[in-house]
């Protein structure tokens, strides 16, 4: 079983829709949760970062973590064509970069139709 599971999609929604992207994980030691956005032929770019359970909002993006269910979500409101990209969840058990190994999900390909 993979440590992090993510539906690869593709997911296609009309412009303006609310998008929900999700990941599940099996390692209860994970405490730091991230969402990366990756445009075609580019590297991943950090979008959201959360610690432990709860919600975090940044503009049109909201990240949710439910540690009891081992489930994390990224919501995109008022989706735009420029949001079309692959979204990767990632998580880590430790914070210090000297001991860190981030575990990535396989990514969900999202397409926003104008």
């Amino acid at each position, binding site marked *: 079983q993979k440590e992090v599971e993510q539906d690869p999609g593709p997911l296609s929604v009309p412009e303006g829709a609310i998008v929900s992207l999700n990941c599940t994980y099996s390692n209860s030691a994970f405490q730091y949760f991230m969402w990366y956005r990756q445009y075609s*032929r*580019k590297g*991943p770019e950090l979008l959201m970062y959360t610690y432990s359970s709860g919600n975090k909002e940044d503009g049109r993006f909201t990240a949710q973590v439910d540690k009891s269910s081992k489930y994390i979500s990224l919501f995109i409101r008022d989706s735009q064509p420029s949001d079309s990209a692959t979204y990767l969840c990632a998580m880590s058990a430790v914070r210090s970069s000297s001991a860190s190994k981030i575990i990535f999900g396989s990514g969900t390909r999202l397409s926003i139709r104008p």
Partner: protein
Amino acid sequence: EAGVTQFPSHSVIEKGQTVTLRCDPISGHDNLYWYRRVMGKEIKFLLHFVKESKQDESGMPNNRFLAERTGGTYSTLKVQPAELEDSGVYFCASSPHEGTTNEKLFFGSGTQLSVL
């Protein structure tokens, strides 16, 4: 400010040949990471440098892979001899100082390696 730069962007080689990938991190970043994504799979950690020292190389698949970071600046990842299963996208990432939080990673655009 320049981001993380990787060379080449694409490399096509034959099985048994040698390939060297280069990564120039953001100037002043002590931490440098190599990751790899093979087709259809998730991005996986290969190794971590702090300045010129290998901090963690537990993700390196085998001894055909050799990473160096000269003078704590740029890094190279050499695959010798390359095998078919080495094909994938190799990402480099950097972050500021030793001991800072791991979420502040800046990724390069990657090198697409195809071994035929």
